[in-house]
């Protein structure tokens, strides 16, 4: 994971609630066994239109296809972003497409955790603040937003300023680009001690063998 602190970028507005992971990355791309190469499949069913013969055309109306939003590193959406399936492919696709942060009023649980593991900053702002940013980014694709992780602020050059909450541990991991397995293994002595006890509690064993 790459450490990240401050990010200034234009933002892509997606003014819809409950954007689920099936929309973020449709299931046909979940058959791949690789961890990379998902950027082209992000929001696939919205990015393209399909005719009866199975031909695919870029949908010029979808915001990601508008040239003025090219290169944006921030995505803004409404509440409950990332609900549905646990597929981490959703976080990979968002990240590999080039987004480093998503701003929304709320995020679904599993997506929240997947995003963190992939170094994506999730910023929770009030519905009103999100609305303001959505409007500004829709009206002006050049509208730039700055997210500062250390200070936990979102600002723009029109005087917008909001503070966001983030779990201190998650912040620490994002700022330092830390990997979770390594962190857990720092507690291996405790894990050994726990297993010493717990593995004798046979009710905890998935497979009981007499």
């Amino acid at each position, binding site marked *: 994971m790459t450490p990240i602190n401050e990010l200034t970028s234009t933002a892509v507005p997606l003014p819809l609630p409950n954007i689920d992971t099936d929309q973020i990355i449709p299931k046909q791309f979940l058959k791949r*066994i690789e961890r990379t190469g998902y950027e082209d499949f992000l929001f696939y069913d919205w990015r393209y239109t399909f005719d009866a013969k199975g031909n695919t055309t870029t949908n010029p109306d979808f915001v990601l296809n508008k040239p003025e939003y090219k290169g944006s590193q921030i995505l803004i959406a409404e509440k409950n972003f990332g609900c549905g399936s646990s597929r981490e492919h959703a976080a990979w696709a968002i990240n590999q497409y080039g987004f480093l942060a998503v701003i929304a009023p709320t995020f679904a649980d599993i997506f929240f955790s997947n995003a963190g593991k992939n170094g994506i900053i999730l910023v929770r702002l009030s519905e009103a603040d999100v609305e303001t940013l959505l409007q500004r980014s829709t009206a002006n694709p050049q509208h730039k937003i700055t997210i500062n992780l250390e200070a936990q602020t979102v600002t723009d050059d029109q005087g917008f300023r909001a503070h966001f909450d983030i779990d201190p541990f998650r912040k620490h991991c994002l700022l330092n680009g830390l990997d979770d397995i390594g962190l857990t293994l720092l507690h291996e002595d405790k894990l050994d001690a726990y297993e010493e006890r717990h593995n004798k509690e046979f009710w905890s064993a998935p497979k009981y063998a007499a």
Partner: protein
Amino acid sequence: MSTSPRTLFEKVWHQHLVAEPVGEPTILYIDLQLVHEVTSPQAFEGLRLAGRKLRHPERHIATVDHNVPTTSVQDRLVIADQIADAQIKALRKNCADFGVEFFDTEDSQQGIVHMIGPELGATKPGMTIVCGDSHTSTHGAFGALAFGIGTSEVEHVMATQTLPQSKPKTFRINVEGELPFGVTAKDIILDIIGRIGTDGATGFVVEYAGSAIRALSMEGRMTICNMSIEAGARAGMIAPDEKTFAYLKGRRFSPTGAAWDEAVAHWSSLPTDEGAIFDRELNIDATKLAPSVTWGTSPGMVTTIDGIVPMLTDAKSDADRKGFERAYEYMDLKPGSKVEDITVDAVFLGSCTNGRIEDLRAAAKIVSGHHVATTVRAMVVPGSQHVKKQAEAEGLDAIFKTAGFEWREPGCSMCLGMNPDILAPGERCASTSNRNFEGRQGRGGRTHLLSPEMAAAAAITGHLTDVRNWKK
């Protein structure tokens, strides 16, 4: 030592604490990880790259479900879709390389991962269970703490048998009273999601309690817990009781002899103590419930079978209004139109929500003596080999086939259409599965979620049908 009254969740959580480092998430021990082909390849790859092994291969069980064709055994042995085939082969190899017990395509225990855990007796009360799949919440029906995780977390559990977790809040939903005729576990959970919304339980572990929940079979309880994630919950749980023990007794991985008695004693200590406090509670009167059906593209867009497609003014917020507008268009439905007038092109009976033996029995009762409408393509996909065999032993397959249903091999099938079973654009399906998202059952496909009984009735009449008026 005296302790204050605790909830079922708190007991299980407490018994799995490995470490509580200051300023960091708690490290929680994981008793069982279930593995399937779609969310595991990158996790195994990660282990290989880091030179790590599975800390406890014996605490893992793997099967194939999402990608396997359900048309015929032949189609499963030689899978036409090469990418799907490669993913299944990758799991086969990964399980062999890392020492994980694998229930392969034609194994007598193969099935949807959330079906086989309970069937094998691997899912038991008081355990912590994870899987790279959001419907892992199903296993909470046994009083286990079970939740879905992403692939990085799958790898984390493989390497350490633990997960860093922040402690969720607790939410008890009490469903009291006797369910009216024609109202099922599926209707209870759809009603709950409609009431609290698809993010209504985000950050919570839900305990379902009350006389209506206790009266449900284990199958019904699994249906309820299965869809907890559709309300945003981290997990759903139901206190273990005599029904739970009776279900587990004699299963392949269940304890035997003196160990069984000891296990039952432990399990009996798990239910929430009298006076324990929940962060949130909700009471539902079961006697007032009606059969539920979704009309839109989110499981929270739900109404009753005798109702109408809600009006825009019924939306609770601006964001919901935008969701409604999009859903009317996608579903090609007019606000105010009668739900029973909605015609369907396809009926799907199956999935980890309603692909169990009890579901097939209930649907077969409706179907028996009738024929599928000529305008409808209907299929039954048993959730597991075990269910399929049982249903065939009871002659249910014959009832369905005579009525014009396709009788399939076990798998996820049209629940998510990652395999050849998909809707064509614009097709409308009455489905016993758990998600009605845009394109979930095939691009442009339209899904109405409902109970197995109502799906069966819709197959016969060709439109959504109130099962309470069903005449033999």
